[in-house]
């Protein structure tokens, strides 16, 4: 530690008071939580919400508009769009969550050593991240898909890779802040071992602030995943994935709007819900004094 113990000259912008933001998002929050609960249920037990099979074709009942028997209508093969949307939650949402989890994990594995080991490690890691950051995320994801081939797992992998530099930088920045924090000096002053200090204080306090960006990242990842599916680089057919359903329904939009509109709405709705909850977390965490 060779920087002076004086405060930086730049004041940190203060955050908007808790009260005001709570009030702004209140009704939205309840709704969002409800959406996420339903979505989680759809992931765990889609059969409960939609008993119909998402993959069984019934050519006789093709292209039925929304109605009593088929709430969201049927597609070109006579599959129930509602069942497909419900069953698709698992693929779309798990893709978002999985990609984010992986991205954060790798971000940690790069960002922490970068912040805690020497200058050389930091330079190497951050230059590599610069290289990845310099490429548009979609381009990076496409390159990854080119290597590993399209599938739902690989789509998650591609999105994770393209999100790594962002998380790595975030982790590094946070770890550097934490490392210089007064409570780390206190822990050292108590005579704790370096390993203990890192594991007990640095790592957990670096992780905490990642919760919000990671939550918001889930939404971004869902959108990115649907884009890959749309380009035909997502999961295998007939997997009911929202992006793929959108892609398949888009040519029929004029005659059978319901095939594309419902999965499209599902994407938007779940991303909105994830974002609202993420922001609420942000408010909750940032609102806590001392953070």
């Amino acid at each position, binding site marked *: 530690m060779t920087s002076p113990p004086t405060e930086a000259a730049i004041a940190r912008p203060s955050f908007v008071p808790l009260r005001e933001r709570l009030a702004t998002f209140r009704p939205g929050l309840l709704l969002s939580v409800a959406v996420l609960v339903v979505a989680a249920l759809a992931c765990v037990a889609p059969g409960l919400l939609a008993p119909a099979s998402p993959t069984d074709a019934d050519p006789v009942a093709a292209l039925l508009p929304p109605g009593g028997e088929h709430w969201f209508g049927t597609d070109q093969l006579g599959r129930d769009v509602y069942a497909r949307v419900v069953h698709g939650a698992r693929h779309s949402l798990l893709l978002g969550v999985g990609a984010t989890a992986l991205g954060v994990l790798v971000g940690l594995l790069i960002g922490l050593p970068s912040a805690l080991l020497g200058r050389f490690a930091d330079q190497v890691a951050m230059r590599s991240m610069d290289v990845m950051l310099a490429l548009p995320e979609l381009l990076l994801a496409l390159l990854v898909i080119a290597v590993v081939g399209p599938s739902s797992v690989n789509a998650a992998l591609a999105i994770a890779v393209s999100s790594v530099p962002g998380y790595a930088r975030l982790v590094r920045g946070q770890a550097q802040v934490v490392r210089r924090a*007064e409570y780390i000096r206190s822990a050292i002053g108590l005579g704790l071992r370096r390993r203990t200090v890192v594991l007990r204080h640095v790592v957990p306090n670096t992780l905490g602030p990642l919760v919000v960006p990671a939550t918001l990242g889930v939404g971004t990842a869902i959108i990115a995943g649907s884009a890959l599916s749309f380009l035909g680089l997502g999961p295998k057919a007939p997997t009911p994935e929202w992006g793929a359903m959108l892609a398949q329904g888009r040519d029929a939009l004029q005659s059978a709007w319901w095939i594309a509109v419902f999965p499209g709405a599902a994407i938007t709705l779940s991303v909105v819900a994830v974002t609202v909850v993420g922001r609420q977390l942000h408010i909750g965490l940032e609102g806590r004094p001392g953070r």
Partner: protein
Amino acid sequence: MTVSTTEPAPDAPDPADAANTEDAPDGPDAASPPDPTASALAVRSLTVSFGHGRRRRTVVHDVSLTLAPGECLALVGESGSGKSVTARSLIGLAGPDAAVRAEGLWVNGRDATGFRERDWRTVRGRVVGLVSQDALGALDPLRRIGAEVAEPLLVHSLATRAEVPGRVNALLAGAGVPEPEVRARQYPHQLSGGLRQRALIASATAGGPRVIVADEPTTALDVTVQARVLELLRELKESGTALLLISHDLAVVAQLADRIAVMTDGRVVESGPAADVLGAPVHPYTRTLIASVPGRRPPEPAPRAPAGEGDVRPLLSGTGLVKRYASPGGGRRTAVSHVDFTVAPGETLGVVGESGSGKSTLAALAMGLLAPDEGEVLLDGGPWSALDERRRRPLRRDIQLVHQDPLGSFDPRFTVRRILDEALSVAGPARAVRRRERAAELLDQVGLDPELLERRPARLSGGQRQRVAIARALATGPRLLVCDEPVSALDVTVQAQVLELLARLRETYGLAMLFISHDLAVVQQVSDRVLVMRDGVVVEQGPVAEVLGAPAHPYTRTLLASVPRLPDHAS
């Protein structure tokens, strides 16, 4: 817009915060003149609350004040007392979330109860100017000083564009800013704290207001600088501007105020001419406040280790310590230059200095958290700074730190129990059950309820936090406490209690202390010997009575002279 300074102390107030206010005088300000239209600023029965419904919180209750033209009225109170909200309400800036009610409000004699935003705008800056605390934040950091000072002139069309530079220079010069042409082109962060505060005053006076509301105008400043800013305010007052001075510091207020109003918990509990309030306080809270001002109590009888140097082996000593930092612009800055010090067992060495004097660096060197570039720190005559961390680690329990910002020194995820437990685990591999008991004992020792064990520090008051920090430092069974500005962030009554606690612990455990503070009065109160630092160099050191009683170095003398003190007649 809400006012963050009005956040009350978190739910469990410090015992001192809860100073009883029951027998507050019922009536409004007894001294308020009958005719508010002749006043510079007056309010009758002001009540301010925030929030709605169940969340509604009233922070100012039934406050009445009158500021006569050319007069200085001081509004004194600790944090959370509602003094800043009161001040802002007087210029219509309590914020959109605030519900402000008053029986009457007069600005320069005009009835302002029916003022709309448009009316307020004509008043602000032109009739009433605001000088707030922390000029770094109060001046827009992205704009040049000149633009900030000129803003009232332009808003109120008091000068043409062409006239502005000249007017700005005059204003800055009038506020005692040297080289105003140069400063006007600089940004706030490029100025020293004192100059910034002067620039802020220049901007507040630019529109030629009759009233200046000064909200903690000197709080963040070094004493010497504070003295000069107070002088500037005095000149303003003498030139006929009425001054509403808001401060937590009775000693500061005593320098300027004609009348004083004491606030606590949103109420004015006592008000009257300065001499009366300070000399014959009626309300118990006022008395506590006055009694808490440091340096007022006689130095405690010294039951300490013999002060004679040489015959006792020092516990901790530093010789020829030098520490340099790389400065951001390239090159190196010397923070500590050839400093020698010794702390004998059981002795308290006070280190006093203004910001940038190198005293915090000295604390870090003493703690072994920084390695000196030259010189060495010895513990019990053996190596300390020269040890590698692996060897030093087992010895660390002997020297513990109490920091200015206790909250920052706790892992934000930890409860009080975990904080203490971690420190206890360093002291020895005791069993978990035993450590539980010890944690409760420690809290008891620092005067806290063991119930607080399960709280997180963020939910404690400032005083409680500092007590927890002290308890943690005690947990390892240290022989030396390094206290780096341990009471600077605390309200004056809390500060007095914490100092008292430290004194008690020192006696109980025979602790030695390296006590670092910018506040001469505090240092004077706790130290056996004192060391005065300036720009990284020790200018003077010796027993407290010698150094502060008969300072040899001119800097020490200036420092002493700058400390605002209560008049001798104060109770």
